[in-house]
């Protein structure tokens, strides 16, 4: 059994495989941000941060922090050689205009049509959408990286019940249980974590789960 950190790293490592050489990628905060640590050797991937930079580098050493260089979580970061800063209008022009190849976000719910809810639970928790609605509409490929269930309750559903962040937006979902493509036919399981029997994955999914004829193990 993986602990929470191992589970998150397992998901992040698998998402990182999706990032092709020469692409521009925007990672959400939390689990998605871990993906940067697992980009396969030899692939040059540029990371954008919607608060206004391209070329996000590693976290700076404590004695080398510039408080004016931060990520979308407000945390100090570094910028790689060849990086650049810009204002929010350019940043979201890049996002809305389809210049971001991949965005990786977390979700509260995803429907089999690719609808996604991840910005509020009415009456309880209302953080806001930040840049998520623009990223979901603008990025060429949307990957959801999240745990498969929330305290046992399915997050992959026939219909989302929470307010939507975007409709028909999600392309791929990576959880600790498997890799699920969102297709016209619905959720298709293309890879599974052998730790979980297929029946358990189906039971943890709140919508029909089509098993791909090319199903393989998650690496």
């Amino acid at each position, binding site marked *: 059994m993986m602990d929470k950190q191992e589970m998150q790293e397992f998901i992040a490592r698998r998402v990182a495989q999706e990032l092709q050489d020469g692409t521009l990628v925007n990672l959400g905060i939390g689990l998605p941000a871990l993906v940067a640590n697992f980009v396969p050797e030899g692939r040059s991937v540029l990371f954008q941060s919607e608060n206004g930079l391209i070329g996000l580098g590693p976290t700076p050493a404590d004695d080398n922090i510039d408080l*004016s*260089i931060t990520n979308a979580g407000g945390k100090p970061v570094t910028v790689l050689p060849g990086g650049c800063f810009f*204002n929010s209008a350019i940043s979201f022009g890049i996002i*809305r205009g389809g210049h971001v190849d991949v965005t990786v976000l977390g979700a509260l719910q995803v429907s089999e049509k690719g609808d996604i809810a991840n910005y509020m639970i009415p009456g309880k928790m209302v953080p806001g959408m930040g*840049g998520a*609605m*623009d990223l979901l509409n603008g990025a060429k490929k949307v990957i959801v990286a999240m745990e498969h269930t929330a305290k046992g309750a399915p997050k992959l559903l026939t219909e989302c019940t929470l307010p939507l962040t975007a409709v028909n937006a999600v392309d791929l979902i990576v959880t600790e249980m498997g890799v699920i493509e969102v297709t016209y036919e619905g959720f298709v399981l293309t890879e599974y974590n052998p730790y979980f029997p297929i029946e358990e994955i189906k039971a943890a999914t709140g919508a029909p789960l089509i098993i791909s004829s090319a199903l393989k193990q998650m690496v």
Partner: protein
Amino acid sequence: MNKLITYEEAANLVRNGDTIMVGGFLAVGTPEKLIDALIAKGLQELTLICNDTGFVDRGVGKMVVAKMFTKIMASHIGTNRETGRQLLEGETEVELIPQGTLIEQIRAGGFGLGGVLTKTGLGTEVEKGKMIININGEDYLLEKPLRANVALLYAEKADESGNLTYHGTTRNFNPYMGAAADLVIVEAKEIVKVGEISPDDVIVPGIFVDHIVYGGAE
């Protein structure tokens, strides 16, 4: 030509009931000392337009804690539990706006455009009550321009005529808010003489800036 004023003078330019735009992203690129000056003056019933509501002890979040807003327009309030409390208890009106829409609405307000046509928000609660326009077979949401009475901005460096430069990710919303407000006050970390910023390096033209306060070390 010299636009330098004191924090007290700056605070006196803002009135109860005003709509204010404040630059910054999670309190990075936010004019902290201007915010302190407004809090000291005890302004009330303001409307805030800002990317987010910062933190309880940093950025515009301090003004949220001081209960200075009747309405907040922002893309994210999740880092300030007090904003969430005021929203859930019905004390403050909060309008959540997608970040890319918010900056374009401000730009449209400052640049004389009639609105913003975006796919962002289609099919969500954001589209409620708004016009949807079909262009070349695709639906777009019409989002209206935003303007404010006063903009409070941050800059890394200002010359005395108000030309501004930035460092790192402190630009964010600052460059366009100056165009969209009737009165613009900039807190600059460094202030230099006219001519000391190369015309090629100016990020915000001085014509957008009415007043400057010194935000650096004493």
